[in-house]
């Protein structure tokens, strides 16, 4: 499993997401589920760019591990503390007129990952998500 560290910028979105997709496929995940890993990685990166580095720039690091049939992705940054697990849920029942833009990224992470944990450790935000590899 290869760790990747790059500046947390939207221009690196494609490279970061592809790397995550490739690691998930290599871990043995079926393609459709690996795409969900890619989605969770995109949503996490967007949050890092928006909330951890709102006015500054810095790196984001992705590391991966496979343990007892579970594929773990750890996303770290060295920006402002930001805990996405504490964010409010969007109202997904609202009608078009009342529906608000935003809030769905974290909703996807929460619903697609089998685990979603946050910690602030050694001056870094650390988000761990995990997915079942097999059916």
């Amino acid at each position: 499993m290869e760790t990747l560290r790059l500046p947390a910028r939207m221009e690196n979105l494609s490279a970061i997401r592809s790397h995550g997709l490739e690691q998930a496929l290599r871990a043995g995940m079926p393609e459709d589920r690996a795409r969900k890993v890619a989605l969770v990685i995109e949503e996490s990166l967007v949050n890092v760019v928006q909330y951890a580095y709102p006015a500054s720039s810095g790196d984001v690091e992705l590391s991966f591990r496979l343990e007892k049939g579970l594929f773990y992705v750890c996303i770290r940054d060295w920006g402002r503390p930001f805990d996405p697990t504490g964010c409010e849920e969007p109202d997904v029942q609202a009608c078009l007129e009342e529906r608000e833009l935003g809030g769905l990224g974290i909703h996807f992470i929460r619903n697609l990952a089998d685990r979603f944990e946050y910690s602030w450790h050694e001056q870094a935000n650390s988000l761990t998500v995990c997915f079942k590899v097999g059916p």
Partner: protein
Amino acid sequence: MEFDSGKQGNAVVIKVKGRMDAVSAPEFETECGNWVEAGEKILIVDLGGLEYISSAGLRSILAAAKKIKAAQGGISFCNLLGMVQEVFSISGFATMFPIHGSLEEALSKGEPS
């Protein structure tokens, strides 16, 4: 992401291909906005060629839909597959918008709500 758009009867069919992510999503809003500004009221979006969508894509769809609604028009979607379908259900978009199994079905329903 690529679009293949054109009129079919009184509706505009927009076929979307590729990935709708945080970088490309605003292009979708622009594409729909151009048709609405040209006076079109019925948009049918064929997502059969879309292999990936993130929350930024849904945000763009929602912004476009609000614009169409404000112009007394409507938008519907067809051919949702795999992760695109799942993302539509988890987000509630599958119940917020008219969704059809095929383009033919979407065209036969006439005006989307």
